[in-house]
């Protein structure tokens, strides 16, 4: 579903992505792991077209993202820090996104998270008054709202309270069962254990390995993802 081929991106003298190639298929739930500044978010933003890569190409569903923009209607994106127009209310933002996506009737929409996070009761609040956690909830609700085939979640549970992050995890598992491709970055490896099927490990903008979780555990001789990754990092 996503094919990245030799993608490179430099920010000035800093190399964020260095000949990065990866292949992700439908039905997989992939954890994007790596130290801070290893290019995880840059890769995600490149898929979304928010960052334009210097060389290489990415295709999503067979469309080259350079020439096509409609592929984004199949993507639900939850950013690391959700930035929204400050003087709009939550209700207005939700309405605007539905308007832009052109999906108005509620049977096409997946409002599970909106209901479970009880967003309907705070629709009148302005975005600038929201706490970081509430923003995360809005981002999550928006990512799942349009029933996309591809979900990209950048540190989804950072800043969420335990109850909400549990709700979100349940939702991710539910969507995974529907055969969607889910891409997650997170530093909290323990919570990825029961979610992901594959691991992509990045370092300094390069791909270190792309393995299934069983393979990784077998190779490192560990039973937990957190320990397996710790061992990988130590061996580097």
């Amino acid at each position, binding site marked *: 579903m996503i094919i990245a081929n030799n993608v490179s991106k430099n*920010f000035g003298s800093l190399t964020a992505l260095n000949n990065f190639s990866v292949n992700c298929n439908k039905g997989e739930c992939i954890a994007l792991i790596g130290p801070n500044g290893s290019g995880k978010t840059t890769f995600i*933003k490149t898929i*979304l*077209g*928010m*960052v*334009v890569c210097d060389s290489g190409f990415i295709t999503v569903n067979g469309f080259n993202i350079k020439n096509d*923009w*409609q*592929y*984004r*209607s199949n*993507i639900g*994106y939850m*950013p690391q820090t959700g*930035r*929204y*127009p*400050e*003087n*709009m209310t939550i209700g207005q933002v939700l309405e*605007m*996104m539905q*308007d*832009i*996506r052109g999906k108005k009737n509620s049977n096409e929409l997946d409002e599970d998270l909106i209901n479970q996070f009880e967003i309907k009761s705070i629709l009148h609040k302005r975005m600038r008054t929201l706490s970081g956690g509430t923003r995360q909830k809005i981002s999550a609700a928006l990512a799942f709202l349009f029933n996309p085939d591809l979900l990209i979640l950048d540190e989804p549970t950072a800043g969420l309270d335990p109850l909400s992050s549990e709700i979100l995890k349940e939702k991710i598992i539910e969507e995974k069962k529907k055969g969607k491709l889910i891409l997650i970055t997170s530093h909290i490896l323990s919570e990825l254990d029961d979610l992901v099927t594959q691991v992509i490990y990045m370092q300094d903008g390069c791909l270190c390995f792309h393995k299934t979780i069983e393979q990784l555990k077998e190779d490192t001789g560990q039973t937990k993802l957190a320990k397996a990754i710790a061992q990988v990092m130590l061996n580097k």
Partner: protein
Amino acid sequence: MKKVIKYVIIDILRNKIMLAYTAFLLVLSFSIFSLEDNSAKGLLGLLNIILIIVPLVSIVFSTIYVYNSSEFIELLVSQPLKRKTIWMSLFTGLTSSMVLAFIVGVGIPILIYQSDITGMMMMVIGILLSVIFVAIAMLAAVKTRDKAKGIGIAVLLWLYFSLLFDGFVLFLVFQFSDYPVEKLMVAVSMLNPLDLARIMILLKMDISALMGYTGAVFKDFFGTGMGLTLSFSVLVCWTIIPIWFSIRKFKTKDL
């Protein structure tokens, strides 16, 4: 595209500054017209104010607005929308609110006091100037990442077009006063939309005699239908070129 424009315009209209700008122009125009007993004189007074205030407000407000909507732009870029659509919507939203403010603030008084061809010309030129300076502002805003720097550049550009350029032209004229530079002056005036606008209106008012021999050359050129068409096309170019460059830059900008 219509949907995005709608949200941009709603957002701008919610901004009190636009209302204040309209009210300010309205009060200014009415007071100038009622101060002068001859409304043609009033128009001349209004011209000088339009040439200063309209570009300043257009360029500064637009630059700040583009920077302040960085969240909005970021949100839209990750949605199924073309980057060009997003940028053009922002441009259309900004220009339509600027033009609306100008039409209400200056257009209505002109229609009441001086609704002849000169008045109409002034309205058209005021509208074009609003659009041109929004386009220049968007180019300045897309080129620089830093907000303070971007606004600084916008103000400097305004200063350049309204003051420094004239100083530069005067310097040239004095340096080369021994040569026949009048024809060259016509060409040089094309390099500044504000100068072009000023000359076009002054000539329409039939006070070119005040400008001496240069005025006569200007009259020869701008007075003809051909010259008028050319100068309007130059003003249109002043919108298209900055906005074209800004789209090109925005398409490859990292957010």
